[in-house]
């Protein structure tokens, strides 16, 4: 029964594929679906909804993009689905999170790798930041580093999970500072990790810049350093890790963007790669993103391809020892 169904699905996909080969010029002819592998209300979902809200405009795709959430297992469920079950007909897009999906594919146990997807464009970059509670004794990154060096493995540091940007940043800090921290992955994503810092369950935390910025506005945390190459426009007073003396680059920055499953017709990929970045640059989109405290970083398909390749190399090296 199952193989019969699968056969029928392949036949159907083949038929639609044949039809598509004739006329990508008219693409898109019907609304497009975009899969987000995190739950409704999460940062990725929230941003995906904003950046796609103008897709129906005439100067963009001319057809709306509907968001569909497939959450679970730190994004693995959604990306497994996109790589294995989604139709590569151009009407199924997916949101990517770098370094998450590349790190997961390096660790194994999933049905996708970098080669399973074709990037379209990047919309956002959310660097990881080091936060401590507002009443913490730590005031600078040096304080944290010297504590971690004197007390190996005693510095409890929360983050959203294993093999996500926060974990990568923690690994890089350990390597750069030649120290041992106690990284505590939380269930429930960045919000739970932030709660652990504010409530004092842990001594420090690594979190998204956008969430940390909000928590600092609310007077709950101090942000000690940004794991990026340069200071962020939202936090001009916070030094980068490099400025503060730890050799940590931007490998942990959480890049978010749009991709399609491999096998999507080249004509459609080209059309999307051309239109989507301009859609992201729409002033209404930029305004909403800024209001929500979400840093934007628009990159074209070629830039994203380079970025993916570079990330994979760094991550392979970093995760080799684990």
């Amino acid at each position: 029964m199952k193989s019969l169904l699968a056969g029928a699905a392949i036949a159907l996909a083949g038929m639609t594929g044949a039809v598509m080969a004739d006329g990508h010029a008219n693409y898109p002819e019907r609304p497009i679906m975009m899969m987000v592998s995190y739950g409704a209300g999460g940062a990725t979902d929230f941003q995906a909804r904003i950046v796609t809200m103008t897709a129906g405009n005439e100067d963009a795709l001319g057809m709306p993009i509907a968001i569909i959430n497939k959450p679970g297992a730190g994004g693995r469920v959604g990306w497994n689905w996109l790589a294995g079950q989604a139709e590569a007909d151009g009407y199924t897009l997916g949101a990517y999170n770098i370094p998450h999906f590349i790190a997961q594919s390096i660790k194994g146990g999933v049905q996708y790798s970098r080669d399973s997807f074709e990037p379209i464009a990047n919309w956002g970059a959310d660097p990881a930041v080091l936060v401590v509670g507002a009443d913490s004794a730590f005031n600078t990154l040096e304080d944290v580093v010297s504590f971690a060096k004197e007390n190996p493995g005693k510095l409890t540091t929360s983050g959203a999970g294993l093999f996500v940007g926060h974990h990568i940043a923690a690994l890089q800090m350990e390597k750069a500072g030649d120290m041992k921290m106690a990284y505590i992955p939380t269930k429930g994503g960045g919000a739970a990790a932030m709660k652990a810092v504010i409530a004092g369950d842990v001594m420090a935390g690594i979190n998204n810049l956008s969430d940390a910025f909000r928590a600092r506005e609310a007077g709950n945390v101090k942000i000690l350093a940004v794991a990026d190459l340069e200071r962020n426009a939202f936090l001009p007073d916070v030094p980068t890790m490099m400025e503060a003396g730890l050799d940590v680059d931007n490998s942990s920055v959480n890049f978010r963007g749009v991709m399609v499953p491999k096998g999507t017709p080249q004509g459609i990929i080209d059309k999307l790669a051309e239109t989507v970045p301009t859609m992201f640059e729409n002033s209404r989109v930029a305004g909403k993103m800024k209001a929500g405290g979400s840093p934007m970083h628009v990159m074209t398909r070629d830039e994203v391809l380079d970025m993916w390749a570079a990330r994979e190399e760094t991550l392979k090296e970093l995760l080799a020892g684990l």
Partner: protein
Amino acid sequence: MEFLFYMGDVFTPINFGLLLLGTIGGLILGATPGLSPTMAVALLIPFTFQLEAAQGLILLGAAYTSTVAGGAVSAILLKIPGAPANIATTLDGHTMAQKGQGAKALQISFLASAVGGVFGVLLLIFLTPVLAQWALAFGPSHLFWLAILGVTVIGSLDSKSVVKGLLSGCIGLWLATIGFDDIMGAQRFIFHPALGGGINIIAALIGLFAIPQVITMFAKGRHNDGAEVIKVQKHPISGAFRELMRSKRALGIGTATGSIIGLIPGVGGQIAGLVAYDQSKKFSPDREKFGTGHSEGVIAAESANNAMVGPSLVPLLTLSIPGSPTAAVLLGGLLIHGIFPGSDLFDNHPDVAWTFINSMLIGQILMCIFGLYVAGLAARVAQVPQSVMAAVVLGLAVFGSYSVQSSMGDVYVMASLGVMMYFLERFGFSAAPLVLGLILGPIAEANFIQGSMIANATDGMAPYFLGGRLNILLIGVVVASILYSGYMELRTRRYTSKEEIIA
């Protein structure tokens, strides 16, 4: 008293219209199986893009309050809990509907919801700063003990025997381990890609509660051709009101439990109803009547799950930490208008904050009025012939479980769990303890692992999990709960009768 100052804003024509729209829409969405409050609110977010901040939040706030109450409709009439919050409502509510008292059950549930809900929102208005500290006090070790406290009620919840209750709880705990483990990323019991994300709780709820009932209805249909018509008793609203006044104990326990548990980030909403049900059963002189269509059961469960609504927003509004999935969606609704929850919200946008909170207060009352208005009509569902009903419930079950994540995998999970539950029910097991295991398993496990990682890095396991006032208090309650169950079991010791084994 600042909230009174902004009360007028709720009653401007547009705002009040949105409030009505949100309330009625929320009731309908809530009554649809599979559409949990979280999803209903997420569905409405795009509509708020075009509205002003305060107006958008009125719509979302009203929808949140009324979907929670609306979930009781499908729980009572169809035995499909729309969300974990409504599980306990099915236990007595559906039995009442089967006896033809559906109208009464719905009226009582809406009245109890309104009382609990208004109390919860008043807590949010007056005690937010105090409550925020309380919400933060629960670290991993405390949440672990809280989950264990939940486990101790498994045995006594809706089961003929404690052993069978515990066994079904264990099945639930095992089911909860399926999928990628969220903390360590390990894969457990994944035999099919559909299980990669674990068992979805909504799909499981629909399967476990609705499917055994559908199979029973189909099975009955073959023996009995004449449609079995239940006479739906009319029930005056004043009667429901008097009934509520008589059950002050259940109402009080439900409201208090819901308010306290609702505050705790990450736990609250899902177990508030079940814990309140269990507590009011233990304290009630008529505890034997629970599970047989006793109005106190409905009152406790529904007042608790609506009382949780207000306090569950405390961590979000004061600390900018969403404590529940629904709060996370509401956070998105705020951010889209450039408003950051926390001191910014109350200092710089008091009009938005207080209009939102006020709209939830008024929304509770509107929800109650509309609910009472349709209760009599809705209860007629019980008159639909069983063969038709079975098909309708089956259709809704498939629709509901598919719509959670647009995934056929969830439908398969729903169907297989449902068939399994049908056979388990024939052996005297019941769904409620199983679901409680499914909900509590991940909470206990994740917090234990997290707590032990923190403990190993700091002062060791024993001081971390056993030290501190809150830990000791919670352990004390756990021990008391176990002792009480044991004592009750010994006192009302019954031997399993032959009929029970056959049934």
